[in-house]
C-alpha cells in the first residue's frame, strides 16, 4: 500500500480525484493532491472508501427505487395483515436481508483492515529525522529547528522549510489553547495541546510550496492562522538554514538606520526579537529574517513593504482580535521602519 507511487496509479488517482471533486481539485492544498507518501497513502485509501461507498450507495438506492416503483403499481391498499404474514415472501426477504447484512459486514471489515494497514504505516517512526519544535500561539506558529548546539538553533515563525526526501519530525505543543496543524498535501492533522507533546512526521517527495492552517478552533483569528511549508532540494535547504543562522543585516542606508531606531524606541521592542539588535522579547514572532518569508501575520498578507506599513499601523483592520496593538507612528517613521524590516533578508 505504501511504497513509491508508480505512474499508473497516479493517473488512476487523478481520474478518481476528477470524478470526486472537479472544481476543488485544482487548488494546490487539496487533501487529494498529495505531495508525500503519508498523504498519498491516505488519499489512495480515501479513493478506495469513496468508490466502495459510491457502489454501495447506488445499489441500495436502486433496490429502494425498485421496491417503491414495484409497490406503486400493486393492487388495492386495504387488506393489511394478510400480505405481511405470507410465509413465502417472508422467507425470501429473510434470505435477502441476511445476505445483504453478511455482505455489509464483509465490506466494513475489509475497509477497517485497509485502514489498519495504512494506520500502521503512518505510525512508524523514522530514525534519522530533522527535529523541528513547533509551538502554537493564538494566531501564529513559533518554529524552532532543534540542534544539540543551542547557537545553531534556527528560530522563525509561520513558515517551514523542509528538505525534499528527508523525513522531518515535528514536535508539537501549545502555549495557550489547543491548535491543530494540518498540511493536507503532506500529512493528516495533529493537535497542539498545552501540557502535551505530540509528534507528526512530514516527508515531501517533490519540491513545492504547500500551505496548511490551524484546524482546531482556537479563538477570534482561527481563520487566519496559516502555515507555509517549502519543500526544497537538500542543498537549497542547507543554504537557507545557514542564512537563517546569521544575525540580522545591519541597516545599509540612512532610512533603514532610522527604521532601526524607530523599531528600538517604539512598541515593537516589548514583543519582537531581531538578533543583533536590542530587541530580544520572545512573546511575538522572531523578525530577524522577516523579509525571507513570503507572508506576514501567519499568512494573512503577502510580505510587501506597503503591506508591512499598513499592517504595523492597524493590524486589527486585517485580523480583528489579533494580539498585536495598533501603533501611533508618524508617517515618516512608519515608512522608515517598513523599509528597515523589508531589508531583513
Amino acid at each position, binding site marked *: 500500500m505504501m511504497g513509491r507511487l508508480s505512474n499508473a496509479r497516479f493517473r488512476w488517482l487523478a481520474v478518481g480525484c476528477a470524478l470526486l471533486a472537479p472544481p476543488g481539485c485544482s487548488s494546490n492544498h487539496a487533501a487529494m493532491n498529495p505531495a508525500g507518501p503519508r498523504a498519498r497513502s491516505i488519499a489512495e485509501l480515501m479513493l478506495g472508501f469513496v468508490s466502495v461507498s459510491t457502489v454501495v450507495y447506488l445499489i441500495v438506492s436502486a433496490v429502494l427505487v425498485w421496491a417503491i416503483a414495484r409497490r406503486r403499481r400493486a393492487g388495492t391498499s386495504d387488506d393489511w395483515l394478510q400480505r405481511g404474514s405470507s410465509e413465502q415472501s417472508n422467507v425470501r426477504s429473510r434470505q435477502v436481508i441476511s445476505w445483504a447484512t453478511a455482505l455489509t459486514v464483509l465490506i466494513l471489515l475489509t475497509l477497517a483492515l485497509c485502514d489498519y494497514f495504512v494506520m500502521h504505516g503512518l505510525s512508524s517512526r523514522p530514525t534519522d529525522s530533522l527535529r523541528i519544535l513547533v509551538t502554537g500561539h493564538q494566531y501564529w506558529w513559533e518554529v524552532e529547528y532543534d540542534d544539540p548546539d543551542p547557537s545553531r538553533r534556527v528560530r522563525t515563525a509561520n513558515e517551514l522549510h523542509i528538505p525534499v526526501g528527508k523525513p522531518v519530525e515535528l514536535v508539537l505543543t501549545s502555549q495557550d489553547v489547543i491548535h491543530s496543524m494540518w498540511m493536507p498535501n503532506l500529512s493528516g492533522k495533529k493537535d497542539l495541546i498545552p501540557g502535551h507533546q505530540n509528534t507528526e512526521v512530514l516527508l515531501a517527495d517533490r519540491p513545492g510550496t504547500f500551505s496548511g492552517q490551524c484546524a482546531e478552533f482556537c479563538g*477570534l483569528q482561527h481563520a487566519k492562522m496559516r502555515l507555509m511549508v517549502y519543500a526544497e532540494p537538500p542543498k537549497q535547504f542547507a543554504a537557507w538554514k545557514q542564512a537563517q543562522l546569521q544575525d540580522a543585516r545591519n541597516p545599509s542606508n540612512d532610512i533603514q538606520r532610522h527604521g532601526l531606531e524607530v523599531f528600538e524606541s517604539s512598541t515593537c521592542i*516589548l*514583543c519582537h526579537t531581531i538578533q543583533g539588535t536590542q530587541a530580544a522579547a520572545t512573546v511575538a514572532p522572531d523578525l530577524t529574517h522577516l523579509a525571507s518569508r513570503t507572508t506576514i501575520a501567519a499568512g494573512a498578507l503577502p510580505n510587501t513593504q506597503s503591506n508591512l506599513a499598513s499592517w504595523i499601523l492597524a493590524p486589527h483592520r486585517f485580523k*480583528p482580535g489579533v494580539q498585536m496593538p*495598533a*501603533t501611533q507612528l508618524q508617517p515618516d517613521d512608519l515608512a522608515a521602519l517598513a523599509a528597515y524590516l523589508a531589508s531583513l533578508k
Partner: protein
Amino acid sequence: MSSRFLELAVVALIALTLLGCERESRRFSDSPATPRGVQTIRQSELQPGSSIPTSGPPSPYDDNAYAVSQGKQLFEWFNCKGCHADGGGSIGPALMDEKWIYGSAPANIYATIVEGRPNGMPSFRDKIPPQQVWQLVAYVRSLSGQLRKDVEPSRADHLFTRKSESSSPKSAPVSSSAPRDTQ
C-alpha cells in the same frame, strides 16, 4: 403599587442588560485617548491648604472583562511579574494590597506606568500604546478587587500562586509613603 414595582423591575432589568453588554463587548479597533491632564495628576495626597482631589479621566475598561483579561496577559508578557510577582510584590511593591504609594486613581496608575517611578519602575512611554496601558491599568485595579466581581478575571492556566482576582476581597485604597512595609 404593583405598577410602581413593575417600573422599578424594568429599570433594573435595563441597567443589568447594559452592564452585561459592556462587560462582554470586544472592541478591537479602540484607541482611548491618553489622559490630557496627566500633568494635573498629583502623586501625593498631602497638600498645603485645602487639598484639591486629583481628577484624571476614568479608566475606560473598568467594566470590560475582555480588556481586563488582555491586561492580565500583558502583565505577564511585558514581564511586570519580574518585579511585582503575581501581584504580591517582590522587588517591586505589592499591587494587590490596599497600600498605594503614587495614588490609586486610574489616571495615577496610568501616569506611573507611562512616567515610571523611582526605585526601579521603568517608564513605558511610547513603548506601550495607550489602549494597552489602559488595559494594564484596569488589570492592576482588579488585583486589589476594585472592579466588579463579574468583570475581574478568574484563575490563569498557570501555577496557582494566590486566589484569583475575582475571588479576592475588595480593599479600600490607602495612600502610604513607604515603598514596602517593614513590619
